[in-house]
């Protein structure tokens, strides 16, 4: 499904099924986004990368 980027209003493609806490990147502005609601699907800016994140 296609959603709107909260930063630049560009289109953001989300692969079905969309999941809560899913991360996506806006192809237009490169913002990292997070799915914060499913009904309706809502996108917000994802949190900044934390120091202890990683594989």
């Amino acid at each position, binding site marked *: 499904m296609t959603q709107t980027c909260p930063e630049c209003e560009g289109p953001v493609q989300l*692969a079905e099924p969309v*999941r*809560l*806490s*899913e*991360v996506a990147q806006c192809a237009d502005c490169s913002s990292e986004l*997070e*799915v914060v609601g499913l009904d309706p699907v809502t996108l917000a800016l*994802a949190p900044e990368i*934390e*120091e*202890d*994140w*990683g*594989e």
Partner: protein
Amino acid sequence: MRPVAVLASRVRYEEKRIFAALERRGVPYAHVDTRRFSSELGGGAPGGGAAGAGPRYAAALNREISHSRALYASMILEARGVPTVNRSDVIAVCGDKLRTSLELERAGVPSPRTAVALTPDEGAEAAERLGFPVVIKPLTGSWGRLAAAVRDREAAQAVLEHRAALPSPLQHIVYLQELVDKPGRDIRVIVAGETVVGATYRYADGWRTNAARGARSEPCPLTSALVEPAMRAARAVGGGILGVDLIEGPGGPLVLEVNHNVEFRGFQDAHGEAVDVADAIVAHVLEAA
């Protein structure tokens, strides 16, 4: 059946594949976002936390990306009687390069030559003894962040001075490794319990081959020369679902590190339909339940 908890604050490609694998197998599960996880100690009121009182979950799969939250989430769930993959002791070992190296050393797993110094000043001496070029790595952290390859004492001192200026005492512990003259690639072996799921070559232009740095993955044949050290490394850190990174040394594969929160997008893309990493992960969690 009680649900399997999947702990994750970020649902990436990997977590979506895992949810789909659980659904295909008809396993009830609950996605637990660790940012909204709390638990009262001392047998507090029911519903007082995500873990609640007593084992609410048949098992837990820990996919949390934050090392601290992953470590403590496993610790809490274990204390609540939930079989957790990976266990907190495994996360603690894998989250610290020196602890990993000490376990590998104890188990006799072939690894690159490694040294540790407890102060930045001594780090320069240790680098000299190890012989240049060396890689200076932070004890914690991943995706190859803050790792520096240095080719002489002067460069080592510059990195170590910078390290000494960092506020965290942990950054003052200097972990050094020989820079193995590798053929522009390393090997990632994914292990789930006693099963080797598969292996990929990871190619990169620089000396770092982390997938997070844009490495390209290709299938790597599983040979005993590879499976044996990978399995021994996985057992040495306590087992579970692990990504063992190896490098092809002149005398055979050497284990570089063991990751407890395995990213497998590149691996899955490289293998296509031949291997299903998410399903192998789910199978291992169900065994642990």
